[in-house]
């Protein structure tokens, strides 16, 4: 029973204790009042948001079709596995389950998230993709155990399916994952997220804005573990599917060209143009590759294999490969000679003896035996090099270059996909390369037959053929025919874009048409193999020499039908030999295909015999 200590003021302490208790209760009451009454609205809203989760619905990418509406590229249902950022950060049980059941590399996912987070405010809260492709077994496993995987989510996305594998590789292009810098740049409702796909090449890239559509959202009621309880249909924000793209390409024509008509194991390109509009009916670059390999994410090894393939399948030859045009360039040379009045059409030049000497340099004609003395029509028909050699220096390097540029060479065609300009050398060019007075006028002798430094793309060559056919109109080459919404309503239809009219001065165009017909049906024409049954074809062969001992590139440019030109084109088969024997037959078959006539092999001799028997003079005037 220890006594009270006198120095302790007990009454004061009791009062103080009551005051402290009252203070604590008031502090709590005040705070509760703030939260429940003053901030009530804010927390009520948060409570409602708490219960709903907005789930992304990825818009289906637009379908790509050919000009007849045939599907070339569509989507197959595919599920991706994504994880919420918060779960990735701290839910070790979930990560363990995902690693075990789905083989997810959680470390890789984590570093992916770290990278994403480093990209700025809010990025660290976005979900992260774990798997591109969930198998059927994994899908059912996930759906039967949603509780175990709460925090992870399946996201439906159409995987790009290229219905004909390597068909029109360099027109369609492929899709790939959006790179981080593009994710950063994109904004608003059409912002990309890491893990999204976008068009990386070809029409997939060209029409990305039309194809991708706009992602939607579902609002679902969720519990605290993020599990969906049910969907709120009235709050749904459906995705806007991407627009469908209708190409100008004619599937049958292009497919035939790529498969049946193409010589095996040869690289090369072919372009077929509608001469009335500039639309590309076929744009072939061989070899191609299976685009489907890219839509599931190509492995580095596979990609390296493609990259290192000696035939360079990744390279778009029809618009980006530059070749010496060989004798097909004589269309340009003839135009230059005639418009500069270097020679008259009917004026024979010095006799071809198989070669031509300039100073101490000897230029050979492809025909060792020589062609004798010819005027332009037959020199063109027989592709006599010596005839053109003689015109070269009178025309001169710069005037030849002017004509070539006027006919669309050495410059872009305006094509929507990436293309090359090629090269048309002029004296300024040679001055730059060889130095002033470091070169002689003998160079033009080579250029005039499409050798030397001259380089053209198959697309440029096909456009030239189309311009000859349609009377000198140069259209922009087009690959997109129409853009339609997902209900099939036409949003945009391509209009022909006439870039230049009358590229051939009076009379020269008519002459070239006749000369090209002569190549196919003349007695000594080099392009007999291009003539099918029942249609008149005009064309020009070319055999482009390439450095080294390898075989020449085989060229053939053409248009058909002669009387009412509809299509024109250019074909080049690399390292395959003569244009007349390799490329011209391909042209004949593709024309037969396009005009739906049976192909019975080269018809020249049969038709000549028939025509002679009937006494009709088919040479024209």
């Amino acid at each position, binding site marked *: *029973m220890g006594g009270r200590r006198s120095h302790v003021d007990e009454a004061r302490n009791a009062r103080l204790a009551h005051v402290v208790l009252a203070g604590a209760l008031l502090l709590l009451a005040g705070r*509760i009042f703030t*939260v429940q009454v003053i901030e009530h609205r804010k927390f009520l809203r948060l409570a409602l948001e708490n219960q709903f989760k907005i789930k992304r619905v990825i818009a289906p990418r637009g379908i790509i079709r050919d000009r007849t509406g045939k599907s070339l590229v569509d989507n197959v249902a595919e599920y991706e596995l994504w994880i919420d950022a*918060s779960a990735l950060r701290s839910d070790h049980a979930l990560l363990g389950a995902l690693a075990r059941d789905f083989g997810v590399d959680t470390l890789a996912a984590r570093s992916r998230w770290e990278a994403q987070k480093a990209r700025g405010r809010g990025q660290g809260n976005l979900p992260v993709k774990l798997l591109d492709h969930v198998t059927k077994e994994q899908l059912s496993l996930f759906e039967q155990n949603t509780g175990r995987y709460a925090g992870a989510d399946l996201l439906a996305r159409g995987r790009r399916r290229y219905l004909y594998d390597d068909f029109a590789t360099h027109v369609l292009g492929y899709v790939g994952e959006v790179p981080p810098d593009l994710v950063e740049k994109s904004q608003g409702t059409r912002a990309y997220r890491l893990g999204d796909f976008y068009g990386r090449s070809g029409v997939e890239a060209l029409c990305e804005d039309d194809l991708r559509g706009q992602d939607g959202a579902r609002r679902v009621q969720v519990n*605290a573990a993020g599990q969906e309880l049910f969907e709120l249909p009235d709050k749904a924000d459906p995705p806007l599917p991407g627009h469908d793209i209708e190409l100008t390409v004619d599937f049958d024509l292009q497919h035939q060209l790529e498969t049946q008509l193409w010589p095996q194991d040869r690289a090369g390109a072919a372009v077929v143009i509608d001469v009335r509009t500039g639309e590309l009916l076929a744009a072939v670059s061989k070899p191609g590759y299976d685009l489907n390999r890219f839509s599931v994410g190509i492995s580095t090894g596979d990609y390296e294999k493609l990259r290192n393939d000696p035939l360079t399948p990744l390279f778009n030859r029809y618009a980006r490969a530059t070749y010496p045009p060989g004798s097909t360039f004589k269309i340009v040379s003839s135009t230059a000679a005639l418009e500069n009045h270097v020679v008259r059409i009917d004026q024979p030049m010095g006799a071809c003896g198989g070669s031509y000497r300039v100073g101490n340099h000897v230029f050979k004609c492809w025909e060792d035996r020589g062609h004798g003395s010819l005027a332009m029509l037959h020199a063109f028909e027989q592709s006599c090099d010596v005839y053109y050699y003689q015109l070269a220096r009178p025309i001169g390097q710069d005037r030849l270059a002017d004509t070539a540029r006027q006919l669309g060479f050495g410059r872009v065609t305006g094509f929507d996909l990436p293309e090359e300009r090629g090269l048309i050398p002029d004296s300024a060019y040679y001055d730059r390369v060889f130095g002033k007075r470091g070169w002689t006028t003998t160079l033009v002798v080579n250029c005039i037959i499409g050798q030397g430094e001259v380089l053209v793309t198959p697309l440029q060559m096909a456009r030239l053929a189309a311009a000859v056919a349609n009377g000198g109109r140069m259209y922009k080459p087009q690959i997109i025919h129409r853009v339609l919404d997902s209900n099939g309503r036409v949003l945009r239809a391509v209009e022909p874009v006439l870039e230049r009219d009358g590229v051939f001065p009076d009379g020269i165009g008519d002459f070239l048409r006749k000369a090209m017909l002569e190549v196919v049906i003349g007695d000594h024409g080099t392009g007999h193999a291009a003539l099918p049954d029942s249609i008149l074809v005009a064309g020009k062969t070319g055999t482009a020499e390439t450095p080294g001992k390898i075989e020449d590139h085989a060229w053939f440019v053409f248009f058909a039908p002669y009387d009412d030109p509809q299509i024109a084109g250019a074909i080049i088969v690399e390292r395959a030999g003569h244009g007349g024997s390799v490329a011209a037959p391909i042209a004949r078959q593709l024309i037969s295909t396009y005009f739906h006539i049976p192909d019975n092999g080269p018809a020249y001799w049969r038709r000549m015999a028939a025509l002679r028997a009937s006494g009709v003079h088919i040479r024209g005037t």
Partner: protein
Amino acid sequence: MSRASSPLGVRRFLETVDRPAILAILGLLVVSLVTLYSVTHAPVPENGNPSLEVGRGIFWRQIVWIGVGLAALLIGYSIPFRTIEDSVWLQYGVVLVLLVLVLSMPHRMGAERWIILGPVQFQPSEIAKATMIFLLAHLFARRSGDVNQLRNLIVPTLLVLVPFALVLKQPDLGTGLVFMAILLPMLFWAGLEPLHVVLLAMPVLNLVMHLWFMSRGESGVWFWIAILAGMVAVTIWRRKHWLENLVLLGMNVGVRFLASAVWARMHDYQRKRIETFFSPDLDKLGQGYHVAQSKIAVGSGGLLGKGFMQGTQKELAFLPARHTDFIFSVVGEEFGLIGALIILTLFGILLTRGITFAARAHNPFARHAAFGIVAYLGFQMTQNIGMTVGLFPVAGIPLPLVSYGGSSLAMTLFLLGVLLNLGRSWREY
């Protein structure tokens, strides 16, 4: 004890007990049952995740535990408190043994604080808190001498520090804080001047503030210098207790370097916890989830609440630990400000009565023990409710009498029985 278990004992209890206090206790137990019923019996949405539900068994077990607890209350009420006082050293010894034992127990809920003996599981730290109150009351009752003198502080402080250190090792920061929250008020009740209580609390405040600055990547050196300067100024002004103030000054200096050293050795997740404590809004889905969700639940309740069994946050299990540490959030959501004020009022009545008991008892042990019990419950109540509305850090402290929790509830009711006894028998000694 035999009296307590007989009907006569119960009748005697009802005749003699302090009416407002026992009604407040029973009121809080009713609130607990109503809330737990809502938590466990509200319809779960179709397709809900069963793992997130709080089983209905929780409700029925709480009823059993309340029965056990009321029996413990009767026991506490009936034991002559001298019996308790006479055995404080024995109790202290047993508690130390148990606290060492529990360190070897397997982990549970992330902290080693349970002793499991077959079906019985209990936390020695619960017993430790009660024993601490009795031991300190005993010391302050028997020893003469001014607690404002440093030499008179050393023994009680050391006696608290031993179990405190063992509890921290578990690791259980919340219970450690409770020890401090028992010691300081009891020192005050023993005559420590309020200014000295504040000065003694300074190292703790300094520690918390320093962690806050570090979590923000600031040095906070000016705050620290201000505290030290303030203490120097107070010491010079009062011209006494030089030694005590020098020691406190040293502690304030030391705390800063200790905190820096500890911070440097912390894991990222531990730092994250501290950062989250100071700004829970930064990381709603991570560490701050509990507090953010609790505030949403309470705040969305508004003035009148969403109604019994109508809480959506609880129902969809957004509210974690909603039957234990965060049970107040459920009350706030379903019964609004009215419900919250009812709880505060009941605690206010109970604790005011407790202070009155402590003030009017003639026996020194009774005075100190009663105040220790009041301080203990008062701190738990303030910390727990403050935590659910984002005022205080999450420390794993339940709301006395309301939270689900068997041994803790029984212990609390036992202590309240002792308190009621001390209030009843103030004239007897």
